[in-house]
């Protein structure tokens, strides 16, 4: 414990740098994944034929071991930040697409029909009815993705993208437990913190009428 604390204090500038690097990678990947994933999820609800193949493909990506996926990136995109962000984005996509899709699918068809019967256009139904009702499910998907991403981002140091994996990998190579623990603890703390913040977002974004009745 003491060694870990000592390490954190003595290497605080490096730790801060890796943490920010970590946050930046996760942030960019999540930003792209949310934008792409929500749109794809919505498209799947409109073009049901695509749903099974696309969700299947996204699950396959998820099953590829992360180290292997990073390895596969090297011949395609080289090393550094770009392949790291691409890999993180791919992992983050599935929960977001799937939850957006199911979140919209599970909206009571009677409610959608009421909207249609009152003269809402397809876009108005999406914006005024389906998306607000799917918000809790979509954000749950985003939380899952974020936690996955923070974890996988500890590996991108292997392809030269830095972040909190750096002290962990060095620690493994130099048998320095304190260094491993320091990296792991900060990464875990980061995951918990982001999950907590997204939980607050979920509370703020969920329409009042559909919150669990107190």
């Amino acid at each position, binding site marked *: 414990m003491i060694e870990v604390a000592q390490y954190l204090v003595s290497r605080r500038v490096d730790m801060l740098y890796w943490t920010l690097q970590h946050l930046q990678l996760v942030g960019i990947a999540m930003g792209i994944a949310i934008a792409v994933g929500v749109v794809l999820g919505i498209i799947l609800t409109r073009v049901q034929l695509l749903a099974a193949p696309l969700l299947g493909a996204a699950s396959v990506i998820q099953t590829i071991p992360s180290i292997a996926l990073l390895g596969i990136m090297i011949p395609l995109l080289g090393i550094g930040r770009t392949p790291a962000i691409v890999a993180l984005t791919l992992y983050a996509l599935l929960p977001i697409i799937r939850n957006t899709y199911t979140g919209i699918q599970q909206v*009571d068809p*009677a*409610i959608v*029909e*009421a*909207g*249609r*019967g*009152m*003269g*809402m*256009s397809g876009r*108005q139904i999406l914006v*005024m*009815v389906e998306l*607000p*009702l799917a918000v809790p499910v979509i954000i749950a998907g985003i939380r899952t993705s974020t936690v996955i991403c923070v974890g996988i981002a500890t590996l991108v140091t292997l392809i030269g993208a830095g972040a909190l994996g750096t002290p962990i990998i060095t620690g493994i190579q130099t048998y320095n437990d304190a260094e491993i623990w320091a990296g792991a603890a900060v990464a875990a703390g980061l995951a918990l913190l982001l999950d907590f913040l997204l939980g607050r977002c979920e509370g703020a974004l969920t*329409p*009042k*009428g*559909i919150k669990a*009745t107190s």
Partner: protein
Amino acid sequence: MAMIEIQNVTKVYAGGVGAVNGVTLDVEEGETLVLIGTSGSGKTTLMKMINRLIEPTSGDIRIRGKNISRMNPIALRRDIGYVIQKIGLFPHMTIEDNIAVVPRLKGWSPERRRQSAEELLSMVGMEPHQYLRRYPAELSGGQQQRVGVARALAGDPPIILMDEPFGALDPITREQLQEEFRQLKERIRKTIVFVTHDIFEAVNLADRIGIIDEGRILQVDRPERILAHPADEFVARFLGKHRFQLEMSTAQVKDVMNEDAVTVRISGHRQSVARVVELMRQHRVTSLFAVDEQRKLIGIVTSEAVRGIREEIGLEEIVALDVATVSPETDLLSAVHVVANSKYTALPVLDESGRVVGVLTASSLIGVFADGLTGNGGTPAHRGVLPDTAVRKESEKA
């Protein structure tokens, strides 16, 4: 020109299910047409073709003479109020926002939307300031259904489609909402197509009833005419054992009452008992109604009360005030109960201002019962009414 003209409309769903088969039907402006049929008979399908939630396989539907297949479906739907089978309030919107959906789609200003939401909510019997800011989950089923009705009225559409709006409610709440809706529709005078499988609801609310089975309209007519003359075996079976009760509930006191009630004026100068005895003898009645100058009821004078009384006594002293009354609009089923619990065999029929406009006697009701079950006499109004107490005979009319 009818408001809605349905011409030879057929709907065959993918997979070959023929849900509606060649229906031709007109809905007149301002009337409530109730479609009734068993589950799966095609009621919802037929109704949804009117706002193009379902497109007919063949046939035409016109609204005010315009073929709806050439209208923009979205604009069309904004002018047709719609209450779906399962209420379908938006759970994430407040009651105000739920009601204001169509006004919002139509681009009304926020002030105007709010004002109309308030008006509509009071119209369906809910206190606006108590409920506007609430969410659907915070209302009872009956209240949600009221909001559903208010929402369908928003934007002032000339046509309203209602698909079993009260189907999911308990019998007591349902009856209450039906009654309120019956009064509401009299006030708003919309063209309403109302789907139900409850024959009592149909008879209670309909101007005309359309009976539908296997996608075909078997009979369309006024409730009392359908009850009196079912088009065929199926319709008769559909009305079933409730038919007589239904007939009694559609007929009103004014259909069977005698308009020539024998009355005697007592206010102002004193009327002698002798005059009463004379009137009773002349009209061969055993009781008559005491009224004031405006024919407003004061009470009843019976032959027992005047028997053996000397002439000097004023009428006021023998008038019985405890007489039960009915109005011309009271349905016969209720009237029977009033008569059964009344001390007197003749009941005065009073208009809203308390004036005597007729007399309802026990024996005239018995006459209806005697004829009613045979179903061969048209509405009860056309059946013979037996002469009785307080009833002037035909031959004696001035």
